[in-house]
């Protein structure tokens, strides 16, 4: 087993990895940029070394600096976490050159499975279905129309040069095809100076479901089941859960087998995630492979009882996957929310700053993968993920109830967070029924807040609203007293005074 692992990352995932190291008796080496000296991962690591200025391209993305720390610190392995260099094949190559083990897939497997086009080619060879369509430009509209017929409508016409929805048309029937093709090509020409189109099957409100796989260096590949990650804001996952509310045992087996076939075809080793879209008829289509630990790995850990980071380390050290793992049965249900320093009133724009005080939830079924602490200043320079809050329950209902309870306990003073977004999502009937798709949250956020169902005590004029108004008045009164520093207004002698608050101005926010 390794003696010392360099963690080439920061924030909650660096903390997650160093905790695994500590539990295994392996020394952990953190790295930090100039703004991260006081970061939690630096405080908790066994060793920590500076690697340069705040911009990540001058610190966390500098392979040379990382390898230098690894060598100086006598590390025998490197864990990349997720993000930064985690899917950059140059890092495993540099590790190999330095005689240090990379905790992740080999560089070749990373490249052959990690790139979207190479992954799709591999998927075709491994008999894993991808979203049907022409990846090459359409030469002949009539031929494309015939293909659309075979794929069955609706289909999407997309500009080869496109992006941002320009030159894109949703086609519902063969009758619409010709005019849609004309419109889309001319729009594409206007927008990009390139009128070429390609054809893709349109998946109506698909679920994002991904399979966690593990492969050892001895040819064994296993699936640890799926995660449902359909709740996304602009293609960014915000809530993940395991198991998926739509996946049946039969579908689980089919998707797991497909993911394992793909991993074998790519000679994959270590942890990986095969992402699929699943349509309403439970057809699944390969999307891409993430050749690393996922942000959302804890939900799989909570239902399987496995520690995926420790598994990654063991596999990198050459251990075999024990046979028993193929027969692992998930228990209960787990759900994760990603708590970000974001301003919900300003389109979830990052909102860094100093955490003046906070209450974090705890108790039965609650796990917090924390990357911050009270008194710390969230820097401006990186992804503003603060912590991941994970709830486990015997059932999906219990997991949701615990998550909702934990979110009520969670308070932060000093920075804005997206916690309110999750409270809102957890009240949505669609979500509670598990009927969400990858565009569901974006749709929801376009709807006015008051249209959604609300518990009675959310309404203005409720006890909560009264209490908030009273708190505002008292806070202001205390504040005035402090600013005035007039001892007469402190509690030493009864002082009668009044303060009036405009309760009419008290309105509820999302």
């Amino acid at each position: 087993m390794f003696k010392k692992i360099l963690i080439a990352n920061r924030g909650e995932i660096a903390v997650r990895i160093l905790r695994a190291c500590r539990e295994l008796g392996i020394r952990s080496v953190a790295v930090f940029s100039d703004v991260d000296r006081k970061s939690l991962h630096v405080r908790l690591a066994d060793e920590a070394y500076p690697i340069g200025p705040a911009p990540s391209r001058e610190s966390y993305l500098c392979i040379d600096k990382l390898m230098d720390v690894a060598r100086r610190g006598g590390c025998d392995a490197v864990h990349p976490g997720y993000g930064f260099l985690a899917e950059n094949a140059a890092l495993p190559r540099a590790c190999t050159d330095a005689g240090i083990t990379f905790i992740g897939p080999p560089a070749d497997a990373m490249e052959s499975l990690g790139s979207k086009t190479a992954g799709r080619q591999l998927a075709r060879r491994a008999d894993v279905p991808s979203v049907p369509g022409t990846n090459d430009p359409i030469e002949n509209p009539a031929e494309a129309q015939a293909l659309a017929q075979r794929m069955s409508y609706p289909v999407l016409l997309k500009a080869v040069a496109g992006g941002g929805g320009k030159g894109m048309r949703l086609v519902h029937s063969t009758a619409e095809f010709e005019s849609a093709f004309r419109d889309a090509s001319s729009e594409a020409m206007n927008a990009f100076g390139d009128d070429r189109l390609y054809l893709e099957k349109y998946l109506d409100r698909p679920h994002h479901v991904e399979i966690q796989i593990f492969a050892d260096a001895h040819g064994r590949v296993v699936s640890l089941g799926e995660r449902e990650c359909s709740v996304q804001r602009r293609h960014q996952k915000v809530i993940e859960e395991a198991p998926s509310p739509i996946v049946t045992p039969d579908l689980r087996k089919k998707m797991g087998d497909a993911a394992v076939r793909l991993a074998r075809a790519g000679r994959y080793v270590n942890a990986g995630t095969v992402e699929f879209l699943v349509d309403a008829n439970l057809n699944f289509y390969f999307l891409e492979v993430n050749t690393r630990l996922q942000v959302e790995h804890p939900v799989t850990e909570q239902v399987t009882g496995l520690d995926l980071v420790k598994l990654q380390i063991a596999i990198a050290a050459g251990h075999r996957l024990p046979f028993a793992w193929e027969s692992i049965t998930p228990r209960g249900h787990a759900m994760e929310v990603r708590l970000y320093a974001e301003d919900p009133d300003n389109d979830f724009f990052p909102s860094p700053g100093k955490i003046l005080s906070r209450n974090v939830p705890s108790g039965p079924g609650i796990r917090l993968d924390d990357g911050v602490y009270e008194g710390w200043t969230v820097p401006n320079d990186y992804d503003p993920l603060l912590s991941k809050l994970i709830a486990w329950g015997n059932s999906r209902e219990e997991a949701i109830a615990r998550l909702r309870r934990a979110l009520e306990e969670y308070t932060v003073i000093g920075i804005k967070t997206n916690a309110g977004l999750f409270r809102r999502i957890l009240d949505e009937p669609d979500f509670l029924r598990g009927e969400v798709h990858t565009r569901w949250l974006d749709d929801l956020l376009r709807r006015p807040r008051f249209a959604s169902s609300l518990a009675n005590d959310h309404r203005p004029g409720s006890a909560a609203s009264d209490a908030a108004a009273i708190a505002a008045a008292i806070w202001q009164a205390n504040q005035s007293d402090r600013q005035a520093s007039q001892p007469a207004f402190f509690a030493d002698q009864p002082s009668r005074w009044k303060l009036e608050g405009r309760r009419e101005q008290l309105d509820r926010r999302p």
Partner: protein
Amino acid sequence: MIELERDRVAWRVTLDGRTVAVDAVETAPNTLSILLEGQSFEITVTPSPDGKLKLHTNGQEFTAEVIDPRAWSGRRHGAVEAEGRQQILAPMPGKIVRLLVKEGDHVEAGQGLLVVEAMKMQNEIRSPKSGVIERVLAKEGQPVNAGEVLCVVA
């Protein structure tokens, strides 16, 4: 309309004219635990740059603006009393909705003199000193401008 009154340890609160039992303590900076007739609320207060307050409780968010009537009378009563003859001025444009005193009345410091409505909010103007109402210039229903003399306490 919320009115607060602090005695030795607790707040007495009037909510739309109804007295409610409120037990408020600070449990952390900008965090109040409020017991409102037994109901427990943990409320965090975040001041906005525009002077409004954001309030979070149990996952709900509210926005409030507090207007401190002490600012209106130009001084904080309950501390030392103002001395000499005092003109009571309208703190902002509004309408006199109620006169609480008449000429010749004896008033205590802090006693309400009249009620001004502004921005849909009723605000009681109180006496900065104990004394006698020398003159009342305001009339019920009358609109007033900021700085207008409403009455005089001598």
